[in-house]
């Protein structure tokens, strides 16, 4: 089953084309990371998925139903964090969640309190007091925003920068939370600038640049070995002698060797009596992939 499907989705704001002919497909159950520089159209895409922004052309299907026409049926099954969390600043976090829960249809009012306490506990705000949200720290607001997204027990979570403002421990907690939800069958789509975070969490990534979706691929495929092996040895000269022609690059005692199998290479070096202190198959990092595919973000202005 497909959770998100867009067909040549385009949005223009005046003369600016924010999203340009995007065909995005997200199957159910994956953890999908949406990447791209600032201003590449990620947020506009997410807003169109949720029916907040109307496409100039193209179509959106969410959970198999056309958006925004069937928003009333689809959106109760979707939890979202769009751009950054928001709350009524003069109310406490608990009051915010209760009112947000009461604002829409569905769910019995009698269970509301339990629902709210449940999501507060899940994001680590169970003991939160009656302070108004305007007194919350950035991290607390972020947790509250995620709690609001989880409130209705969604099948699909759309999270824009979910770890923004969280400290390393908080980021770890959110990763555990999202992995747990994913294991229970929730499809998670998140956008983030923290590539390491996406690398640790996602199974599939899409990369946007200047309004276009330039790549969608499973993370395993992107990070498959490049056919090179990094070798570190106190005796680089003998390695170069032994593997003449296979050494691609040499930097002091670190070598990059063209070899299809790191294990075979290791056996070969050890058999020749060469001490190996480090050996690993080279993989492209997500950062390399993204930087190769994308240009400078819209926040950089060159003459």
């Amino acid at each position, binding site marked *: 089953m497909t959770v998100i499907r867009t067909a040549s989705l385009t949005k223009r704001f005046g003369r600016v084309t924010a999203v340009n002919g995007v065909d995005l497909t997200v199957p159910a159950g994956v953890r999908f990371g949406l990447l791209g520089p600032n201003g590449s159209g990620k947020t506009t895409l997410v807003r169109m998925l949720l*029916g907040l922004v109307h496409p100039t052309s193209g179509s959106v299907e969410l959970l198999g139903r056309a958006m925004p026409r069937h928003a009333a049926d689809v959106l109760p099954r979707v939890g979202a964090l769009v751009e950054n969390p928001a709350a009524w600043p003069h109310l406490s976090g608990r009051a915010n969640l209760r009112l947000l829960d009461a604002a829409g249809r569905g769910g019995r009012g009698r269970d509301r309190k339990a629902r709210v306490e449940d999501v507060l506990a899940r994001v680590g705000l169970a003991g939160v007091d009656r302070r108004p949200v305007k007194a919350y720290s950035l991290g607390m607001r972020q947790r509250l925003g995620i709690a609001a997204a989880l409130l209705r027990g969604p099948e699909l979570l759309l999270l824009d920068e979910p770890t923004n403002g969280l400290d390393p421990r908080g980021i770890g907690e959110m990763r555990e939370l999202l992995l747990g939800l994913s294991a229970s069958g929730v499809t998670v789509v998140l956008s983030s600038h923290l590539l390491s975070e996406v690398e640790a969490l996602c199974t599939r990534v899409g990369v946007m640049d200047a309004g276009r979706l330039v790549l969608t691929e499973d993370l395993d495929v992107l990070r498959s070995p490049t056919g090179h092996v990094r070798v570190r040895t106190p005796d680089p000269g003998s390695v170069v002698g032994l593997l003449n022609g296979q050494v691609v690059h040499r930097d002091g005692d670190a070598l990059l060797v063209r070899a299809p199998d790191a294990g075979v290479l290791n056996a070969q070096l050890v058999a020749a009596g060469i001490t190996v202190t480090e050996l690993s198959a080279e993989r492209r990092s997500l950062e390399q992939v993204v930087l190769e595919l994308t240009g400078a973000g819209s926040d950089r202005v060159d003459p």
Partner: protein
Amino acid sequence: MIGVELRLMLRRRRVWLCWVLLCAIPALVAVLLAVTNLAPAPGQGGAFLSAVTSDGQLFPAAALALVLPVFLPITVALVSGDAVAGEASTGMLRYLLVRPVGRLRLLTAKLVSVGAFVLLAVVFVTITSYIVGVLLFGFGADAAVGGAGGITSLSGVVLTPLQLAGRTAATVGYLALCMLAIGAIGLFFSTLTDSPLAAALGVLAFVVVSAILLPLDAAAGIRFYLPTTHWLAWIDLFRDPILWRAVREGVFVQLGYIVVAFGAAWANFATKDVTS
């Protein structure tokens, strides 16, 4: 959503401050009048003000006439301008729409909450000014003439307390309707911008323009359709027999404003890109 909207409004400090100020202004006037005993001469000053020193029961009418031209529209502009633009500026608008709350339902709830605000504002002013008026000026000497608690209408006929209560209630309803028309315009402006302040100032500009055009002979052709033209029609409710014509016309014009402004708000908001 309507319940949520009302709870949100009642928990805003700004709303209570508006109500307190609206009640405080007539009270201040009453205290000054009572201390100096210098009521404006009949025909001068605010409506009914000349009569209140002789009978405190007329003070609610005088208080409404005091807050009507400026202070009441300011508070309505503040609250209605905040309706959608305020949610947009805190970012809650997108979360409400994603919850999902239908856009028409959201607008309707906002209009209802603005209506509740103006109705409560007028009611609070009426109740507090009745208490203040009776405390400071008593029931008046005329009461003896007209029986227990009777007061004199503008036409000179004595009204019974029951008649007076009924007419005050009709005044409250009429003024709330007038203010709701302003509120509906504020709701429309509030869908045009993400800034609550801009929407509120837009409403005030609208009221001021209407007030400027009102006395102009050159604007006689459109005078009937200006919202402020009919604001003082409620004074006719204190004549005996009541002159219904101006009040009836006022009700039609205000309802027209509510329908048109709400329709415009809906037309703009239904397909608006929410980028806040």
